[in-house]
């Protein structure tokens, strides 16, 4: 609750600051400080210190899982601000508004992570989506950005419609929006509840870009300004996953055997399409869009398994995937050439940045000693613990081996190919990258640093 109210306030503050403050560095300073405070108050709340007592009539509940996932999202946003906030200046004149919109998205993320009523879920998803439509089109003079924004808006609105339809059907079946009561009401199978569940499944799959609802992703991620792609491909996607897992765990938890097979099929399709298509990309930005689809495929395994290690794993996965991808996007944003050739010879020019990039890429590929490995490890462990779906695990690791191909193409370009990719990077940027890489390795050795918060 702390973070929710504060982030709404901060959004308004950022809107005014863009009017009142002339200096962009001051706006940026306020945003970063604000986010750090936001993170702090959220951590305080998870330690039991709450500043606001508001009666929400049981529509939201801030349990440990919700608070930890909010902390992860806020921390990742903080890292994103530190690395990429300066590059947002290049996009357009409305510098302060971008931050304001991001703070509003943060509100949505908090709602999605803590909903106990399907109305809140719907509100959260909408509060996330609408600012994102604007951010996608932030580069107003760029046709691709406009196209992406329009495409995203139309597709997003359509899926939101499906979602509302699903919620309405569930309401019809149970007579309530409340998650706890609904669970009991829809335990007995009925046409309304099954249809509602499927509509919710499809619309959430759309939001996390799971196949076959992924078609918008590459175009939108490619067209959006790189800094915002970084934000929406990581933090937003991970947050929607948190909502997704809560929804199916709490609302439809009883009838798991009914929807489990759907997730197996969707996960396998997502892994296949994401990985195989990523192999053929020439632009790193587009490759990362497909990589985000393939990583979503891995995250879907947690929905298939839906047990303790799946829930621990999804948090670890959200952190590992967000941090590594934000790092890569931050570097990509500074390059002129977004193709693989654009990275040629980077290791010669910027050994520190290249080394950090290697850690990020290894983490995404799931090589041990990085957080990415443990994230994948938890997913596999969760599925194996269910005792079924062994084919899915084997398929997933084969696809993970395919993903090595496109991640390592970047490493090969940086280290083994001749070229003169240059980056104008400040010392602070380099050190932030090194710190981020160190954090990824630290999480890869001691996952308990994160999972600890779930229990203590």
């Amino acid at each position: 609750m702390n973070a929710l109210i504060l982030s709404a306030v901060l959004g308004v503050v950022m809107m005014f600051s863009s009017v009142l403050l002339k200096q962009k560095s001051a706006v940026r300073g306020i945003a970063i400080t604000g986010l750090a405070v936001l993170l702090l108050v959220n951590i305080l709340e998870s330690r039991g210190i709450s500043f606001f007592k508001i009666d929400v009539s049981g529509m939201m509940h801030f349990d440990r899982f919700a608070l930890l996932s909010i902390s992860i999202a806020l921390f990742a946003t903080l890292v994103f601000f530190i690395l990429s906030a300066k590059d947002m200046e290049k996009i357009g004149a409305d510098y302060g508004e971008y931050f304001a919109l991001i703070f509003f998205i943060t509100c949505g993320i908090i709602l999605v992570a803590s909903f106990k009523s399907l109305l809140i879920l719907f509100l959260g998803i909408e509060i996330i989506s609408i600012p994102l439509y604007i951010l996608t089109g932030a580069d107003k003079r760029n046709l691709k950005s406009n196209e992406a924004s329009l495409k995203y808006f139309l597709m997003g609105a359509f899926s939101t419609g499906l979602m509302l339809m699903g919620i309405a059907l569930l309401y019809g079946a149970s007579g309530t929006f409340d998650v706890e009561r609904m669970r009991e009401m829809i335990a007995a199978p009925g046409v309304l509840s099954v249809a509602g569940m499927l509509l919710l499944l499809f619309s959430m799959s759309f939001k996390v870009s799971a196949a076959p609802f992924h078609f918008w992703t590459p175009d939108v991620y490619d067209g959006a300004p790189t800094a915002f792609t970084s934000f929406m491909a990581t933090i937003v996607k991970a947050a929607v996953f948190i909502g997704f897992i809560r929804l199916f765990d709490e609302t439809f938890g009883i009838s798991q055997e009914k929807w489990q097979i759907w997730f197996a099929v969707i996960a396998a399709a997502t892994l296949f399409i994401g990985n195989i298509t990523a192999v053929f990309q020439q632009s790193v930005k587009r490759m990362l869009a497909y990589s985000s689809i393939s990583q979503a495929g891995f995250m879907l395994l947690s929905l298939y398994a839906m047990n303790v290690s799946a829930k621990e794993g999804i948090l670890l996965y959200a952190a590992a995937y967000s941090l590594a991808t934000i790092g890569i996007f931050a570097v990509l944003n500074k390059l002129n050439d977004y193709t693989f050739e654009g990275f040629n010879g980077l290791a010669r020019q910027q050994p520190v940045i290249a080394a950090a990039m290697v850690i990020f890429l290894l983490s995404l590929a799931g090589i041990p000693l990085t957080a990415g490995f443990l994230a994948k490890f938890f997913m596999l462990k969760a599925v194996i613990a269910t005792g079924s779906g062994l084919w899915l695990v084997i398929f997933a690791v084969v696809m993970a081996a395919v993903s090595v191909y496109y991640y390592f193409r970047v490493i090969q370009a940086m280290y083994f190919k001749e070229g003169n990719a240059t980056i104008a990077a400040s010392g602070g940027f380099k050190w932030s990258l090194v710190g981020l890489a160190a954090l990824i390795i630290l999480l890869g050795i001691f996952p308990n640093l994160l999972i600890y918060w779930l229990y203590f």
Partner: protein
Amino acid sequence: MIAVLLILIPLLTGLAAFFFRNEKAVRSWALFSSVATLAVSLLGLTVFKDAKYLFHECEWMQGLGSSFAVGLDGMGQVLCLLTAVAYPIIFLSTWNSSYKRAHNFFALMLLAQAGLMGVFLAMDALLFYFFWELALIPVYFLCSQWGGERRIQVTFKFFVYTFLGSVLMLIGILYVYSHTADQSFAISSFYKADLPYNSQSWLFWLFFIAFAIKMPIFPFHTWQPDTYEQSPTATTMVLSGIMVKMGVLGLLRWLLPVLPIASYSYGDTVSRLAIIGMIYASLIAIRQDDMKRLIAYSSIAHIGLMCLTIFSENKIGFQGVMIQMFNHGVNIIGLWIMVELIERQFGTRKLSELGGLAQKAPTMAIFFVIIALANIALPLTNAFVGEFLMFTGVFTSTVTKYNILFTVLAATCIIFAAVYTLNMVRKIFYGEANALTANAKDISLNEKLALGVIVILICWMGVYPKPMLDLTNDISDSILKISDVHHLLKK
């Protein structure tokens, strides 16, 4: 303590090596580090022999059931000694080769050593998997950055092959883990997992393919000749001398005892693959003109014999394999040193372009012939002891009814080995010197030192293998006891 030091010394010195700027200094630093590791390893063999020094366990990833458990059993001692001996030899013998960005090269070499040590020492399945991958990453960078022309594609093929193998193994590890009584990755829990036959039968292949790719066993060997050929020679030494032993160790420590029934029932299938690979690789080796490729194929044949012996499941064979792992490592590193010397001096590895070196470089010829004879497993050389034990093991095997056939077929490879090895010696050292070799120089002091150590080890192990036999005695017994199928079937 010894076990932890063996990992920590190369790890920390390797990380430090990234920050050196002077090539000479980093070279000395790497040599110093490797000698320190060797000293620790020798101390573990002689002075601090008690289990309290050799084993170490501390908490790591509580809740997951994994702990940082490392330890030196007899097999670990042999392999760590091999790693520890090999590195100073590698650094000494390549002292005169210069590398671009040498600090990165030596740092990665040392990190690879840390990874290898970890694989040999890990007594926890998850830790084993960690190190298994960690050993691979530095080697990937080493081969891709300092190798031959086609290095990027070739190394990448190698990487994807081994990565695919290892993630499949990860599934196997996770499956066994989920069926252990106490949800633990500890090796003792794995040994007690006692899985039913129908799960063992598919788990076997998940593990076996990972190890088979690493060793490599036919038909998973296709990455190997290319990778050996394209890598810088120092890395090839690591790959062929030490890294292939990861696969052999995997079979002995993580496959046979964990999945004994499947190992028994698929033993013949695997043995057939091993024999096909041995004969096939030997025949190809005879036709090779490139020294590196010749040695690469010869290595496939030798490793095939180890695999064959492991699946004949008896004590004498296990001991033979463990001793031969050490000997094969020493011998093949000797051969690679020769390749490096010749390539550096003449700029070619083609047998057809060389000749008559014996008159110009007699010391080199003597060393080469001794190592070549060891490669053929002539009596009084180290490989004879190992191969003799292994053949005895295969011949007296009670788990297969084809033991005599297997022995006969495998023994033909000794003849093939003599053909290609002696042919190589003849083409390089005898005949008329040509324009290229007319001005050949003999080897320098540091190379003499490195080769001297190898020759001493060859003769010592060939004449007096008792220390090795003692070292591997207990562990062979215990592996056999856990994986003894007759006993299990009776139960």
